[in-house]
């Protein structure tokens, strides 16, 4: 790794790069799927390579290769420099990275049990026990459980003198039960939906999930949903469980505060943002109950690391403070446009991709009430739990989310189970209607391992700390 990095930086300078950085990356990943009582898939994937990013004549070029050979380094650097020169022909303004970054050091994810030393049979056993629990419920049609473990060794070095080495671990798992009828299909999952709940850490993260203790419950809920009442339509008080609050933060605060989006750098793909610079320190984004931070130091968060992929140290910053929009997620290039310094959110999806601004752990700070109290204080509302579908416009204003499970709330009590629940709104109106957030004891960090952005596409693993929260006058249930 070291030889490749040194050779790349040297070659880049010789070929005329004003700035260069290199990432050498080794990643191993293990995935397991148990489906309907059978071990349906086990795979063990390894990838390594290096990527070189150069600035020539104020324009970017990047090239990467899987061939970790000295001769390939020369070729890849030459390719990156040639690409940068081509970029310079059609650039608008020269890139300004702001002050130099000279971080040096090592970081390792705190891990109690290295998941790659845990036997396959122990992992399979955890999933099989959860499968049996789901299978104990008559009429569950399909049962599925999965696990994923990732280890990434990453070296970052730059011509400014930065040199960081990181050893990052992730572990994740989840289960899902599906019930069907001739005209319906309903699923329930635990701890979250879309595969897994994932975090930075070792096998202890899996053990703490206690998958087997939740299998029967989600199986029963999936079957019960088939005959549940359709979620009614109307303007109602809405209470969301913590995981759905996490996704709401992701889509309606995380993405629109990415400063590259704000500057149009994602306009042709993921879109732009309604949170434009003139609104900074002026926009009343949410109610005073709403404080949202980006914190790459949060324990177990998927956005937790030592340095970002520009060598900026992990840090905590505010995006929204007591309802006021006060900050962005930034990179060196975008922060310098606002006269700021990067707050360390640049991450790449492997050696073969450039870093982009990505959420770290973007979290709603806990409030001072509880889910139980919120329900008790609600006359006519709906409680929704676990995301089922999510959609939001390209400026991150108009959203519609659906959840797997819902309950009506009548006169301070939880009532009938509801199915096909959805809610919709406009971002600042929605967050300004937030009148309660549960406290620290119900606050949890939710890992989200499927955040897409960029061309070519990249997938980031990010997290959101969230507790149940309540919103007033929300449009609920648009389906007949």
């Amino acid at each position, binding site marked *: 790794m070291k030889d490749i990095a040194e050779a790349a930086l040297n070659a880049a300078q010789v070929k005329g790069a004003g700035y260069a950085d290199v990432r050498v990356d080794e990643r191993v990943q293990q*995935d397991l*799927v148990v489906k309907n009582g059978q*071990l*349906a*898939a*086990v*795979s*063990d*994937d*390894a*990838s390594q*390579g290096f990527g070189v990013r150069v600035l020539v004549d104020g*324009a*970017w*070029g*990047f090239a*990467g*290769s*899987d*061939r970790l050979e000295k001769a390939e380094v020369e070729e890849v650097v030459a390719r990156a420099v040639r*690409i*940068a*020169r*081509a*970029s310079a*022909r*059609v*650039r*608008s303004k020269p890139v300004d990275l702001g002050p130099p970054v000279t971080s040096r050091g090592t970081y390792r994810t705190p891990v109690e049990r290295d998941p790659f030393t845990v*036997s*396959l*049979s122990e992992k399979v056993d955890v999933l099989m026990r959860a499968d049996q629990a789901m299978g104990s419920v008559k009429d569950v049609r399909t049962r599925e459980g999965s696990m994923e473990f990732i280890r990434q060794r990453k070296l970052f070095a730059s011509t400014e003198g930065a040199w960081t080495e990181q050893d990052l671990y992730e572990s994740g798992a989840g289960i899902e039960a*599906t019930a*069907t009828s001739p*005209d319906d*299909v309903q699923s329930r999952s635990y701890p979250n939906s879309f595969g897994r709940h994932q975090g930075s850490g070792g096998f202890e993260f899996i053990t703490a999930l206690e998958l087997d203790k939740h299998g029967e419950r989600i199986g029963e809920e999936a079957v019960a949903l088939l005959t549940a009442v359709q979620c009614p339509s109307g303007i109602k008080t809405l209470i969301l469980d913590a995981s759905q609050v996490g996704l709401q933060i992701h889509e309606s605060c995380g993405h629109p505060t990415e400063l590259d989006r704000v500057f*149009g*750098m994602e*306009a*042709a*793909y993921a*879109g732009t943002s309604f949170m434009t610079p003139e609104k900074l320190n002026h926009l009343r984004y949410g109610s005073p109950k709403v404080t949202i931070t980006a914190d790459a130091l949060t324990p177990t968060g998927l956005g937790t690391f030592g340095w970002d992929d520009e060598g900026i140290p992990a840090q905590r910053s505010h995006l929204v403070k007591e309802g006021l929009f006060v900050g962005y997620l930034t990179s060196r290039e975008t922060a310098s446009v606002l006269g700021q310094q990067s707050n360390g959110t640049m991450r790449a999806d492997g050696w*073969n*991709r450039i870093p982009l601004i990505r959420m770290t752990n973007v979290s709603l700070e806990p409030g001072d009430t509880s889910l139980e109290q919120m329900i008790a204080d609600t006359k006519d509302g709906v409680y929704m739990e676990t995301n089922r*579908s999510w*959609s*939001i*416009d*390209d400026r991150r204003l*108009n959203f*519609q989310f*659906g959840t797997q499970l819902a309950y009506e709330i009548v006169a301070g009590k939880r009532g009938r189970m509801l199915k*096909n629940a*959805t809610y*919709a709104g406009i971002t600042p109106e929605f967050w300004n209607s937030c009148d309660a957030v549960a406290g620290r004891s119900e606050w949890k960090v939710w890992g989200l391992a499927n955040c897409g952005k960029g061309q*070519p*596409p990249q997938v980031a693993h990010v997290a959101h700390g969230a507790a149940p929260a309540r919103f007033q006058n929300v*449009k609920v249930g*648009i*389906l007949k």
Partner: protein
Amino acid sequence: MKSMEAARLTEGAELKRFMDGLLQRSTAEQTEVMVTEWDSALTRFANNGIHQNVAERNAQVRVRVVKDGRTGVASVNQMDERAANDVLRRAIEIAALQPKAEVVPMPGPAPSREADAWSSATADATPEERAEFVATICNRAEKAGLKAFGAFSTSAGQLAIGNSLGVFHQHRGTQATVNSVVMGDAGSGYADRGAIDVAQLNKDELAEEVIEKAKRNQNAQPIEPGVYEVVLEEYAVAEMLEFMSYIGFSALAAQEERSFMRHGERITGDAVSIWDDGLDPSGLPAPFDFEGVPKQRVDLIKNGVASGLVYDMQTATREGRASTGHGLPAPNTDGPFAVNLFMQPGATPKAELASEIKRGIWVTRFWYVRIVQPKASIITGMTREGTFLIEDGRITRPVKDLRFTQSMLEALEGTLAISRGTKLQIGEFIGASRVPALRLKAFTFTS
């Protein structure tokens, strides 16, 4: 490994030697080796200038072994002998450690047809050529007082699959795609193109379309949500078809009772015919799937009737029939996937699709589509970059983007006209669709 000159892919004979060697060294009862290799570049632009510009070369060697009724899969992205031995060893170790389970059978040898999907112009495309293409769009946008954004990519790749039963297939292909959003102060337009041969991408024609769309889409005003007659451009139709494929056309979705397909029943309007054909040269042909099975044409919806599903080895074995050649790489729990979709064109020129609409909406494309209820084929999403009001047979003004929540089957039930021409839409991750534009009787916009 010896590479071809420009695209830096491994030569065919060299690749086969590598795979044969790996198969011969395997001690498993059955072994499958799949090699994917690609060399790609992408030039991204924003605010009338290039802001990201990247290239990569990568490969994946994926090995599946079956031993004593147990399956193991491992992959590595290095193509040397040491890596090959290591990936084989890991796959065998994984198989040995697990309990006996259902084994997805490997196919035996069967001839696959040649599919020409290679363009040397695409494989040899340079960063300077990409920059020049992008400069044309940016310059024309700037002259019009607008800003251009987008991405232009060229790539070359190959897929080879072999197994210990004697299967060996190899296919090379190229792709060139460009998409662009052009923005004014009060609205934007969209256009994209895709082709095997980069020379088929006409930068002036693309620039014309996206700039004209942006100019027409300034100062959009809100319109009351509700049920409208619509014209969906090919961009929107392709996305709808991809979602139908994702939730409905797979045999696994049907076996698990999740699919909206009801075999033999009429599920859309009579004019609707949709099929999958991996060999049609007007699509993005690929002659075999990721299990090494030659691709078959499958009629999915024929004259409105649900008529077929796509199968992989696992779903086909469960029903005692043959795979249609729609398998994904092992280990796969998501089932088969139709990725070469076609929709039957009609007789109406696209420009006349709106001519008989009293009051309706013209939709350029969809955005952030998600499934709401799979069995009812209900999706939600937004319109984006070109939503217009149709009044008395013509487009009168732009309207603000709308959210829709709509059953795809119900929408297609009301198919009133289909455009004569079709457009190739290359998928973001895999495959491509060739589709017409549609006039639909009712589409539900909810906000």
